């Protein structure tokens, strides 16, 4: 009977106002919705049902080619409506939503005429915490018989029952019928309410998670749950330390035991909820000094301006070599530059005699201590994206000569390096290019940084005699033996390597 009533209304071109739903042939969209009311919508214009996050389209796809649509370029299109019973054979189910006062609306038509019976049902699905997907039994809200002798579209509107306001539910629109093989075309679905599904947890209802400091990061994901200025701690280098090794005779070649300074670094960044840098923490462990020079160690934060740093603590600078700004950075640098210590012997004192420190297995070993340097950034000044291992430019200052810097190959010197030293001795640098700090013959480096804590050579043993695949790696331009520094069988000759110095 309802079917006939609707059909009559459609024939006279007007609208139908039933108990709690409305059908109209008007093409005006969502006039009933107050401006600013939150809605969850699906209009098919994204072109693929997969783009409608947490929606379920069973027996529905999107139209393509010349298939009829309702509005825009694309509509949702069901399979043939031949199932007379199942509410899931051709059904569109919304994500979890917190409905507000308003009307669920959508447009619907058939692609062709000629079916016997067609009907549409609207359900809501409450939360049932006794089942794993939290999805309770679907509750029927309305059944509407559909006209089968027309392909004109109608707009259907359904009042949201008051008892559902601010609950968390899903809605399902299902289509069924007997006879014929026409399909439902659906478009412009609008649900007044707040999207309440969590796509990162299987589209289950989003939980209200505790956030004590109110920074927007839930406590269980917040490394500093009671500090609104800090949210995440992450490592720039390997969490288990990285190893930096230097030859310190640049621009002359050395003995290539790569132990003139061996320094492990673990660098951590602390960021806020907006991924801006709050702090950078450098844990430095000077493991060996295979030289007599009083070398210093610094790190340039390439791309970070000195005025973006508020303070630096933990450096060991009590000589005359380094001049610092009030914020603790080295003065007169273009990029923020921190000198960790001005003399390696201050952080790894000599015990007993010998050529160096911790480079001869039969000599007393000096205890390795951790020096912690904290760089605090000006609030909201630097994106954490700017601080990766690539952006770090560590360097050694040779024997208290401030202008004599040794960097990793491919890196640039700092503002305080002496340009007159380049291309002298064995150095083949072309400043401003990636061809820096490499030797004229063989393209040898004076520094190397491995993002793992690795052992180093006994004094005067060539690095290639301890790390047996280093030569193959270098000669291949890095293509072969890429794990030359790891402890895999055949990679190391332990006789030439200092062991147990961590």
């Amino acid at each position, binding site marked *: 009977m309802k079917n006939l009533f609707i059909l009559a209304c459609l024939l006279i071109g007007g609208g139908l106002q039933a108990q709690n739903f409305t059908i109209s042939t008007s093409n005006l969209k969502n006039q009933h919705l107050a401006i600013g009311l*939150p*809605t969850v919508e699906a209009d098919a214009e*994204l072109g693929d049902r*997969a783009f409608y*996050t947490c929606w*379920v389209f069973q027996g529905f796809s999107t139209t393509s080619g010349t298939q009829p649509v309702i509005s825009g370029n694309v509509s949702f299109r069901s399979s043939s409506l031949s199932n007379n019973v199942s509410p*899931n054979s051709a059904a569109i189910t919304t*994500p979890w939503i917190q409905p507000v006062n308003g009307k669920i609306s959508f447009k619907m038509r058939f692609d062709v005429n000629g079916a016997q019976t067609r009907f549409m049902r609207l359900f809501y699905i409450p939360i049932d915490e006794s089942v794993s*997907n939290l*999805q309770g039994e679907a509750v029927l809200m309305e059944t509407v018989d559909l006209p089968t002798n027309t392909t004109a579209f109608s707009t259907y509107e359904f009042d949201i029952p008051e008892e559902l306001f601010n609950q968390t539910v899903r809605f*399902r629109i299902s289509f069924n019928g007997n006879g014929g093989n026409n399909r439902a075309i659906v478009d412009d679905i609008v649900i007044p309410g*707040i999207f309440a599904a*969590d*796509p*990162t*947890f*299987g589209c289950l209802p989003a939980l209200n998670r505790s956030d004590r400091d109110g920074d*927007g990061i839930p406590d269980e994901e917040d490394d500093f749950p009671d500090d609104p200025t800090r*949210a*995440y*701690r*992450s*490592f720039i280098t390997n969490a288990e330390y990285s190893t930096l090794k230097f030859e310190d005779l640049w621009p*002359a*070649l*050395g*003995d290539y035991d790569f132990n*003139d300074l061996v320094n492990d670094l673990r660098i951590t960044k602390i960021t806020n*909820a907006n*991924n801006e840098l709050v702090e950078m923490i450098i844990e430095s462990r000077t493991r060996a000094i*295979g*030289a*007599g*020079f*009083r070398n210093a160690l610094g790190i340039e934060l390439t791309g970070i301006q000195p005025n973006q740093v508020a303070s630096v603590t933990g450096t060991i600078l009590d000589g005359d070599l380094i001049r610092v700004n009030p914020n603790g950075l080295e003065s007169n640098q273009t990029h923020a530059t921190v000198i960790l210590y001005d003399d390696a012997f201050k952080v790894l004192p000599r015990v007993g005699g010998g*050529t160096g420190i911790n480079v001869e297995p039969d000599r007393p070993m000096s205890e390795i201590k951790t020096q912690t340097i904290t760089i605090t950034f000006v609030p909201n000044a630097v994106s954490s994206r700017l601080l*990766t*291992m690539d952006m770090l430019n560590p360097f050694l200052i040779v024997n208290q000569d401030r202008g004599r810097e040794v960097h*990793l190959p491919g890196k640039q010197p700092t503002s305080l390096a002496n340009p007159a030293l380049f291309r002298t*001795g064995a150095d083949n640098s072309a400043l401003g290019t*990636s*061809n820096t700090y*490499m*030797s004229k*013959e*063989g*393209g*040898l480096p004076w520094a190397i*940084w*491995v993002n*793992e804590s690795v052992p180093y050579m006994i004094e005067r043993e*060539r*690095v*290639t005699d301890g790390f047996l695949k280093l*030569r193959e790696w*270098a*000669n291949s*331009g*890095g293509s072969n033996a890429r*794990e030359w520094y790891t402890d895999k069988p055949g990679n190391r000759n332990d006789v030439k390597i200092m062991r147990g110095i961590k």
Partner: protein
Amino acid sequence: MRKVILSFFIGLAVLACIPEETNSPQNPVVNNPLEISAPMGFTWTTTKSISVTLNKIFLPSSLVRTLVLKDGDGTQLFRGSHDLTQDFSLTVTVPNHVDKIVIEIGEVLLEKSISGSSVAFSFPVIEPSND
């Protein structure tokens, strides 16, 4: 006399404090002590830069979640907030031997092999149960 002896010992002490310069530039060295001939452009880096992207998803409003990037060894490369309705892109540094990148967001776990210098992820289609 006492001053002379004192000066002698002070001189000795100063000499003893001067570090030994075992690797002085004056020492004779061969031109290529490692017998390596690295090809032009090789920078000896044991790491590589990888550009990681994740496509946005379509939602009625922004949805911020914690995104964690790891390499195939489980080493964390990034941990921070991300609005799922925006495209994500970040360049990370990984050891040369790493061949896989992993993204974790809530229960979503995405894993892809590194191809060249980039890895492109798409948020998976999640169709919750309709029963």
